């Protein structure tokens, strides 16, 4: 939709603002000019932690990605773009597209299920709110690996689903769900649903309930209120939730490994096999970095579009 912004329009404040100066330069600027510079000392442990455990491994991977594989699977440092040329070769294009497609579908399914769930807990949860939240987080109490394994038990030909459907005579032959794209998307959806639900809950919880009443008061029924008030105002939660679901889903290798088949390989499987079976750490690093770059660009475009779009 077009907006009727006149030139005299005041600056727009959007939910998620893309900061112009980089985070680092702003931090440094603050550290210098701030009258309470001592307070910034409190940031030091966090900064140290980030540098050590986030930046350092990334740096290692970056350095490796320009090297090459030694005879015994070791990394020979160097400076060549050969790995990147290989990484962007058309060979992996179907795999990358599949990864993005699976992750996108899983994200959409998570949003479709997580939004009503978060809405219910935030607005109608009453005193049981924390109970519901714990239920949402309950799957985290067992490992992702085990939870994914259990889906095999559920989905395989003699599994729970097929046994029940057959005994009810709804189907004659067992459905072939396991080791198909369906089972992978299902597994991803299941695995990342809490990552979608929690940020949605946080933003819906913050939503001023009187705004919903104001919308009703002005003649908007439940559907229009959802469309024009609730969803636009929970947009930060939607953005955060989709990112938290999509990013790990794109790079996931456990789900396609366990629930997928030969034609459901995702980019995470490729990277994993480079590090483990092929023992080509340099190539694996280059693939990782390429994936990160593609993700960063798509996230940037996505956030900019969502954040600035006038949804009303």
């Amino acid at each position, binding site marked *: 939709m077009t907006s009727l*912004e*006149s030139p*005299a*329009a*005041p600056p*727009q*404040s959007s*939910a998620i603002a893309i900061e112009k100066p980089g985070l680092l330069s702003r931090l440094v600027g603050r550290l210098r000019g701030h009258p309470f510079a001592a307070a910034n000392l409190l940031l030091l442990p966090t900064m140290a932690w980030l540098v050590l455990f986030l930046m350092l491994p990334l740096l290692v991977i970056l350095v490796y990605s320009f090297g090459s594989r030694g005879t015994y699977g070791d990394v020979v440092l160097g400076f060549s773009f050969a790995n990147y040329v290989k990484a962007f070769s058309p060979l992996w294009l179907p795999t990358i597209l599949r990864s993005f497609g699976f992750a996108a579908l899983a994200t959409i399914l998570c949003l479709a299920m997580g939004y009503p769930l978060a809405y219910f807990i935030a607005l109608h949860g009453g005193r049981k709110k924390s109970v519901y939240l714990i239920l949402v987080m309950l799957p985290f109490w067992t490992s992702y690996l085990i939870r994914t394994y259990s889906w095999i038990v559920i989905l395989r030909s003699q599994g729970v689903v097929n046994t029940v459907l057959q005994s009810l005579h709804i189907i004659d032959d067992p459905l072939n769900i396991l080791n198909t794209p369906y089972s992978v998307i299902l597994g991803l959806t299941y695995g990342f649903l809490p990552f979608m639900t929690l940020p949605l809950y946080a933003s819906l919880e913050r939503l*001023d309930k*009187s*705004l919903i*009443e*104001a*919308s*009703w*008061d*002005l*003649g*908007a*029924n439940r559907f*229009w*209120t959802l469309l*024009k*008030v609730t969803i*636009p*105002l929970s947009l930060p939660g939607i953005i955060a939730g989709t990112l938290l679901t999509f990013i790990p889903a794109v790079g996931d290798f456990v789900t396609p490994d366990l629930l997928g088949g030969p034609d459901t390989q995702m980019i995470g499987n490729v990277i994993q096999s480079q590090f483990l079976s092929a023992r080509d750490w340099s190539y694996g690093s280059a693939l990782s970095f390429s994936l990160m770059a593609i993700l960063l660009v798509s996230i940037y475009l996505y956030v900019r579009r969502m954040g600035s779009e006038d*949804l*009303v």
Partner: protein
Amino acid sequence: MDDFAIYLDGVTKRFGPVTAVERMDLGIARGEFFSLLGPSGCGKTTTLRMIAGFEEPSEGAIFLDGTDVAKLPPFRRNVNTVFQSYALFPHLNVEKNVAFGLKRKKLARHEIKRRVTDALRLVELEERRQYKPSQLSGGMQQRVALARALVNLPSVLLLDEPLGALDLKLRRQMQLELKHIHKDVGITFIYVTHDQEEALTMSDRIAVMNAGRVEQVGVPEDLYEHPATRFVAGFIGTSNFIEGSLERDGDHGLMNLGEGQRVLVPAAAGGSAGGPVELAVRPEKIRLYEVGQEVPEGLCLLRGKVRDVVYLGMTTQYTIEVPVLSRQFTVLEQNVEAASDQTLWVPGEETQLAWHPSHNRVLPAEGSAGAQEEDAA
């Protein structure tokens, strides 16, 4: 019932064990500026929310323009609310906030634009139409909220303490503006406030509420001059209360204050003879005379001693001890002469309190059975 914009018929609202509104009967005429006045927690907001449709009455019926709206959701009722917290949509600019209701009515684009412009002109915010609510001052936000509701031309506009968040000066100014707007648009206003002065200056009629019940409904002068209950006499302005019992003397009512003191009361005074009642006298109706000074015939007269003097500029407030009744009276005197002319009474001075019997208000004693039946009549 059809003559009323809003008619509440025995409306009760309970929240679990709490009764927020109890058996409320109220008819509000079209075009009226009607106020709900009462202390915090007396059920004003709850009443408004039931009219708007956000709460369902536990009992009773609500008629809007003659039709029962009990089953209608808020978005199907022809009422609009100005919320205490304004509840402006933070993601929409002023113009889109105001246009929100009209868009749902599927009006033509140019019609929406014209009405939004008119509404913004009414509240003098035309040049801020592109601003987001967060970029406006509290007073401006209040006016946007008003425009957003008014633009839909509802049959009733509900205002829940709309000026509560504003400072005193802005409040005064907005009170006048609201009055003007009400005159201009001719829509029925139901205005909630706990500020008696605000209610008195703005309203055509006021319902005084206490603990979920309507104590009295009337025009401002009536509530002040003829309060029906002790609560009203104490909540709107102040009163001196004296307990006693009611006696009859032919055409006159006579009230026995004890200690041999009797005062004449208006014949139509409430309460039955012999029953416990309370006498209420407004502080400004009482005049002070020097001891020995001749007091006009027929006035109620008491002897007292000045305890406390508070100079208030326009008036002076005295606290006067009356030994026969062993209680204190509050008396307000106009400062007609300059205070420097030593016209003020000083603490310790003996004095006489006198007032005309027509100012005596006899009220059913607090907590007596009669108190509740009074306002139902």
